[in-house]
């Protein structure tokens, strides 16, 4: 629920209001350094942005969901894309790597430990690849959600 979607939201975002379901909501705008920390932290560790904003349950569930999806993708022998070199920038591999990098530190750890090689002949390799890609893309959405909360657009 964005603030603009709620007809009860006050002009001053610091004032409490009731949302569409009658729940009391308060929009707390964070400072710019805190917003930057939320975004960077969320990009490094899924859900960390919400945890920094003291959204404990949301952050925990998001952390568990995204990391579990990433680990299951590795377990299903999906392949991680390494960052493209200069001759590969305009290729599908760039999009693949962008999606994979979105999950943050788990991607770096998996690449460092050699878990992202994948097994092309495995019957679950395609599913694993999909899990790895979607885990990264979901984390980008999670970071955008944390940004909205930090800027007072969402309770």
């Amino acid at each position, binding site marked *: *629920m964005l603030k603009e979607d709620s007809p009860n939201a006050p002009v001053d975002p610091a004032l409490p209001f009731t*949302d569409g*379901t009658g*729940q009391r*909501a308060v929009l707390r705008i964070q400072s710019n350094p805190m917003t930057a920390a939320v975004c960077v932290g969320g990009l490094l560790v899924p859900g960390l942005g919400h945890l920094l904003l003291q959204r404990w349950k*949301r952050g925990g*569930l*998001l952390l568990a*969901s*995204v990391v*579990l*999806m990433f680990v*299951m993708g590795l*377990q*299903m022998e999906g392949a991680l894309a390494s960052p493209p070199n200069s001759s590969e920038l305009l290729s599908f591999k760039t999009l693949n790597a962008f999606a994979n990098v979105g999950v943050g530190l788990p991607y770096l750890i998996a690449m460092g430990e050699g878990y992202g090689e994948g097994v092309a002949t495995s*019957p*679950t390799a395609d*599913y694993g690849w*999909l*899990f790895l890609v*979607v885990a990264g893309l*979901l984390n980008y*959405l*999670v970071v*955008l*959600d944390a940004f909205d909360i930090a800027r007072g657009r*969402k*309770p």
Partner: protein
Amino acid sequence: MHSHFAALITFALLVSVVFAIITKSTPREQVQYGVFVFLAFVAAALVIGWIMYPFPF
């Protein structure tokens, strides 16, 4: 995990949890929306699977 259906259910469950949390504010709304998205994922996969069933390729 070597069952495609189990992979589908797991995928739908994890994605619906994330979608519900980031799009809705209250726990009640999140649960309702999460269940809806989960069922929509599973139903869409089954329907599309049956539509593709007679295809020879």
